[in-house]
């Protein structure tokens, strides 16, 4: 009898996801459906926490070539995805109440989350691929959720086309690797690559995988879909994409590069480093001239992805510490970026535009929204003592440490610092509009309590992770060590 304990969290989620359309026959209220979804997500979180406290379940598949293994890394990422889903569903409860196909909306969110979680525990290129596709299909549909909305539909089409292309690229990469090594298992690939010398086909595969999976993360030059899609999708879904789906791409890259491809004896770390620096720089530079909040946040996400990508080349030198920083930044970013998008959603809900100029005078009209947004902006820019600062510090110190061995890696840190300074410009501009510029009216804005609650969760996490980072950092470190089997988990 096979033990499927490793996918219980996903199974719980999927059961709820399947049940909701049926329940929709009886229940029409979006709030009730959201509530049921929240219960499902909470149950899944409970399962994950149970595993974290009581030991992880056994792996699925051949012990030498596992398919799925629910380890510390999977647990941490599952928690990130589930928290994001929780916050997004909470924020959506009122946001989509006037839309049709409510049941599908919540189902898709949970399905996508299940796919992402599957990816975080996958140990084989094929399971990774399947997980990605589950999540992708669901998010394609979510972007097109308001099918009468032209922008949304256009965005979804672009998303599908570019998504399909990158899917093809990554499949091509996987098959090349299979051709070279004869396996799709990450550990097996590593062992096989270690035993043979540099192989041009393996290098090619590496490039294709970077391109294919890089699409999800929106690293430069595979980023161009992101602003259009984030802008076109409804704001909670943008939050879901930026805070959830993007992180799935990163966990894939961590696994593929650190576990699978680290044995390739070529200086691919420089290339990934260049891509990381390009990603952060181009993302931040374009963000400077954006006037639409969602596009600005989209470009800022691209910039932030560059910071996270830094962890991979750094990990080739300093190992788990760099990945710890990467994971920590993924966690902090999920909350600060998710929170910012949900503030945008809240503003959209009360019919305030998406343009930055529309946020004039918000400090007076909606003090809590403005304050939360300020905190998210400061956190994204990396102002102490907020969470974004702490996670950047870890990445920066990793780069300084790495530079002691491999000198050029200091430039990753330098790029991080310069980009942080640069990004302050457009983050602070939002704050300036909210507090300094006078609004046309001083009328108070009433935001539904569910949206406020979702923002409050993100706010507490953003401030809390900056002040009490020790336990979380410990967790990230434990998760990072699972990628380095030699260190022991």
């Amino acid at each position, binding site marked *: 009898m096979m033990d499927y304990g490793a996918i219980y969290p996903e199974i719980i989620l999927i059961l709820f996801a399947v049940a909701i359309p049926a329940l929709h026959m009886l229940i029409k209220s979006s709030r009730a459906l959201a509530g049921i979804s929240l219960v499902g997500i909470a149950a899944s979180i409970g399962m994950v926490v149970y595993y974290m406290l009581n030991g992880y379940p056994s792996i699925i598949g051949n012990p030498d070539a596992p398919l799925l293994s629910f380890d510390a890394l999977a647990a941490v990422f599952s928690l990130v995805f589930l928290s994001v889903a929780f916050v997004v569903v909470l924020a959506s409860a009122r946001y989509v109440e006037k839309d049709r196909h409510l049941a599908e909306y919540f189902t898709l969110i949970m399905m996508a989350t299940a796919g992402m979680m599957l990816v975080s525990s996958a140990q084989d290129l094929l399971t990774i691929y399947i997980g990605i596709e589950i999540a992708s299909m669901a998010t394609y549909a979510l972007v097109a959720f308001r099918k009468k909305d032209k922008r949304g539909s256009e965005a979804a089409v672009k998303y599908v086309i570019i998504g399909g292309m990158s899917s093809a690229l990554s499949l091509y990469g996987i098959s090349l690797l299979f051709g070279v090594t004869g396996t799709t298992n990450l550990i097996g690939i590593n062992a096989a690559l270690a035993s043979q010398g540099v192989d041009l086909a393996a290098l090619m595969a590496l490039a294709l995988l970077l391109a294919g999976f890089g699409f999800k993360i929106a690293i430069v030059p595979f980023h161009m879909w992101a602003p259009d899609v984030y802008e076109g999708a409804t704001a909670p879904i943008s939050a879901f994409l930026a805070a959830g789906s993007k992180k799935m791409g990163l966990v894939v890259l961590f696994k593929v590069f650190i576990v699978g491809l680290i044995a390739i004896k070529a200086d691919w770390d420089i290339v990934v480093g260049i891509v990381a620096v390009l990603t952060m720089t181009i993302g931040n*530079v374009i963000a400077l001239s954006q006037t639409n909040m969602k596009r600005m946040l989209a470009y800022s996400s691209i910039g932030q992805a560059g910071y996270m990508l830094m962890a991979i080349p750094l990990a080739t030198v300093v190992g788990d510490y760099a990945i710890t920083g990467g994971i920590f930044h993924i966690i902090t970013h999920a909350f600060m970026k998710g929170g910012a998008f949900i503030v945008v959603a809240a503003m959209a809900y009360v019919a305030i535009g998406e343009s930055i100029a529309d946020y004039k005078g918000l400090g007076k009209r909606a003090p809590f929204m403005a304050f939360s947004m300020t905190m998210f902006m400061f956190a994204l820019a990396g102002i102490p003592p907020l969470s974004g600062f702490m996670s950047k510090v870890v990445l920066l110190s990793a780069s300084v440490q790495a530079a002691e061995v491999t000198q050029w890696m200091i430039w990753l840190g330098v790029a991080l610092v310069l980009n942080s300074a640069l990004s302050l410009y457009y983050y602070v501009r939002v704050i300036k509009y909210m507090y300094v510029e006078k609004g046309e009216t001083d009328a108070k804005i009433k935001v539904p309590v569910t949206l406020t609650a979702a923002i409050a969760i993100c706010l507490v996490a953003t401030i809390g992770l900056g002040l009490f980072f020790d336990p979380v950092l410990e967790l990230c470190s434990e998760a990072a060590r699972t990628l380095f089997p030699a260190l022991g988990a």
Partner: protein
Amino acid sequence: MAFAEYAWLIPIFPLIAFVVIGFLGNRLFKKWEGGAPVAIGMTAISLILSLVVAFEALTTGDGTPFVQSIEWLVVQSGDFAFTFNMGIYIDNLTALMLIVVSFVATLVVIYSLGYMHEEGEKKRRYYAIISLFISVMLGLVLASNFLQMFIFWELVGLCSYLLIGFWNTRPSAASAAKKAFLVTRIGDIMFMIGLFVLFVGFQGNLDFEYIFANVDAFIGGNDLLTFGTLMIFGGAVGKSAQFPLHDWLPDAMEGPTTVSALIHAATMVKAGVYLVARSYPVMVDTPTTLLVVACIGGFTALFAATMALNNTNIKRVLAYSTISQLGYMFLALGAGGYIYTQTLEPNVGYTAGMFHLMNHAFFKALLFLSAGAVIHAVHTEDMRLMGGLSKKLKITSLVMLIGCISIAGIPPFSGFWSKDLILEAVFEGISVSPVFAVLYAFGLATAFLTAFYMFRLWFMTFSGEPRDQHTYEHAHESPAVMWVPLALLAALAFGSGFAFLFGFEASIVPHGVFEFDHVASAGDLLVAMFTNVLTYASIIVALAGIGLAYLMYKKKSIDPARFTSGTVGKTISNVLLARYGFTKAYDWIGLKVVYGVAKVADFIDRRIIDGIINAISAGLIRAGGFLRRAQTGLVQAYAVVVVAGGSLIVILLFLVGGI
């Protein structure tokens, strides 16, 4: 050490007064003299506690300090680990300072009740800051390590700034406050450098207890330690207004007279002397520093005394006399320490310095507060408009006379004992180094000048005929709340010197450096003192000074104008009034050097650095606009970029991949 356990409460009480007065509503204290009762009450409580703690330390202790501390900052990073503590350190020196500071402070606050009565709304600010001032000074005295001391040191500076500039609408007060702050800042920076040296040399441990017990553990050699102690003395030079950082003190007279009394007698300037005394166990390892201390002190004593000779502002004369008397204290500390390093024989230098600190606290507080009573009565500080006031201000004139006799050094008033002890200590040094012959001459000359200018002040103010009828008629004796503290201080100014006969010499010694083997009895001490020719020398010069002042300003048999009539006399007089040009020199340094540097820095910052930054940001924003246009919104274009980008990555991999 039952009471010492609670010594940390001593600075807390005035701090409570500060918080209560400063942060609780104005309305509450409108009827309460701006919170004076709170300030007086809290200061009095800390006085009682200080007295108890000091008494305990002086009587029961065997000289080992009482130390109590908590960890404040812990830095652990491999071989770079250190801990900063916050705590209290009580030995006999601390006890002495506690008595002096809290006693004088309490009397000053009580006296303020009368003196500041007419200040209205501003009183609340006054009592709040003065409570804080007392609190941080007591904190400084109790500090258990150099860093903690430095923190309080800076706070003392801040409070002095706030109080000197109390009448903040008066431009001269505002600039005097600024001057006091900036000039002492120079000293503070030197103190900080000294701290760095000690921090490095003692590997991160700045606790007095550790450093005093392990002076030999200093890493970096004696030259570095000498540099460090010199820098620490530099801090004292700034705070205690020694040459060449003395010029802020006369200007600081812009503050209320009570503040001057507090600064001169108990807080601010005494902190410098205390710092040197506290660092004694380290300084005896660096004879050069001690010699510098003695020379600066001796020179300042004489130098400042000369400026007091022809000044007509009653408070300024007292200010110069403070600088001069502080010079005496440094002279005693430096000489005693240096002689010890050369002979390894215990001597009275340290004791004499601290003894003078105590006596000076009493008679200088008395003099300032009496001067305050005079100013309160006649509403002017110009002695040329006074005269004959003894008829109207009987008590004031009497207590001020006591203060003058005391500072002039006529036995058996307190100033006599300590000054004589200082001169004796310096004289002893002549056998060690000829420098001390010069310093002794300086000291003796200062004694003469001090007696002269103090009695000049007294005669000009109180005797003869009123020179300004209008002011004279309006003069009135101070209320009891002012003259009672004066009377108490007068008693001490007369009597505190007798402490010498009752074991002062035995208890105030630099523990850990040396102790006196035998404790001389009062009789022996008296015999030793009055069989010494030096004692008579100092009494004679003091009497000569008083006599000269009497002839010039009382009997008028010598016309003071004679000294200022000739070309030479006029020049000297003007030079003295211009404070040897130091005021101008400070202004010149401030205006030309500092402001010039600031202007250059401003140019670099604004034009060059900001210019580059602005150019970069303008370029980046333009680049953003350009890249933004590349985002066409056409999905075909996106696909092309994906393919092109993928290909580029492949090419890059093959180029830099190292294959």
